[in-house]
């Protein structure tokens, strides 16, 4: 019985810790960590040219991707909710498109922002193209 009890106790402790872990995230009133992470993008990313800039199809595709992958945390209106930052805020809107594409790839795991490296860079550009229309 003991050999089963130990892993089960570990399991229960893990589940409790896991549930509490997400609750430890800061609210969207504190964007500094994420904004600081965006600012840590390599300088060269500021020069990256958005291949989709000004393309209506890319905006539509970016909106579709945003609603599918991002809205669950950042809200359908992108104003942030709970632990997710307001994507209409000056800190995000004033960032260079290349910095945002870099940040989407890199994420900020410590603060709960996943890395979206599994999303092809073309789609990340499309999302950024859409986000830039929210200014």
């Amino acid at each position: 019985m003991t050999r089963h009890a130990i892993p089960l106790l570990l399991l229960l402790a893990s589940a409790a810790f896991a549930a509490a872990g997400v609750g430890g995230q800061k609210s969207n009133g504190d964007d500094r960590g994420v904004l600081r992470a965006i600012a840590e993008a390599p300088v060269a990313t500021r020069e990256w040219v958005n291949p989709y800039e000004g393309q209506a199809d890319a905006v539509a595709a970016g909106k579709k991707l945003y609603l599918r992958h991002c809205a669950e945390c950042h809200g359908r209106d992108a104003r942030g909710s709970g632990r997710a930052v307001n994507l209409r805020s000056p800190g995000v809107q004033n960032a260079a498109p290349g910095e945002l594409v870099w940040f989407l790839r890199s994420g900020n795991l410590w603060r709960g922002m996943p890395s979206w490296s599994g999303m092809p860079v073309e789609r990340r550009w499309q999302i950024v193209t859409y986000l830039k229309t929210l200014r």
Partner: protein
Amino acid sequence: MALFPRPASAQETPYFVTYSHRLEEPGNLELEFSSTYAAQRGGNDFVAPWLEIEYGATGWWTTEIYIDSQHTLGDGALFTGWRWENRFRPLMREHWINPVLYVEYEDVNGADKTMIEVVGFDGEADHAVRNAVASREHLHEIEAKLILSSDFKGWNISENFIAEKNLAHAPWEFGYAVAASRPLRLAATARPCNFCRENIVAGVEMYGGLGTTDSATLSGTSHYLAPMVAWQMPRGVTLRVSPGWGLTHPSHRFLLRWGVTYEISGFGGKVRKLFR
């Protein structure tokens, strides 16, 4: 329904055996029902279904429970045990090669046939034993993996190095899994679509045993090559299918795996609200 507010759509790789560095998004819960069919020489073919419950505890930690079962034709069906795994990303940023540390505890019996990993000298002959006999053996095992994974130009390339130990005085067993996958279309289209190339990911994986600490050799080990395809459907559902072929004599000749995944966004937050 309060617990299941919003289906989510995550970044899925189509692999069944190989892990990439993509973890569950924090607070999301993923339910997956998968199954392995295997053609068996010297015994009856079998189907081994398993249920996965995966939770993104943080951005760098995913925890997961497996519940295993199997049905061998002409020999009945049984529950074969459970596993608890944890994956940790030690580096908080994306790199060219991204390591993930994997630790798992398994409490299964000898009739387990899910073949979620292949290590040591695992082979087809292990699965020819009748359930009544095989299920008498209880296995308490720990398993560690070093997962290395990269995303480049739409491709994911992942390599896993596996070490597994039966806690009852058995040597360490080793194995590997490598895989590559890519969406059929990199950019998204402007219009909503379901069955279109941007929602389909194709790939291939290869996995097998590498012997034990007592006998580190490829001789007598099983190896498999398995192409696969995943279809990311609307509302957080992903379907996957993968035929696989054994490459060496101890391997099963043919495997067929399939699975359906459903991802629930914000599950952790809803659970916490219940206790406030």
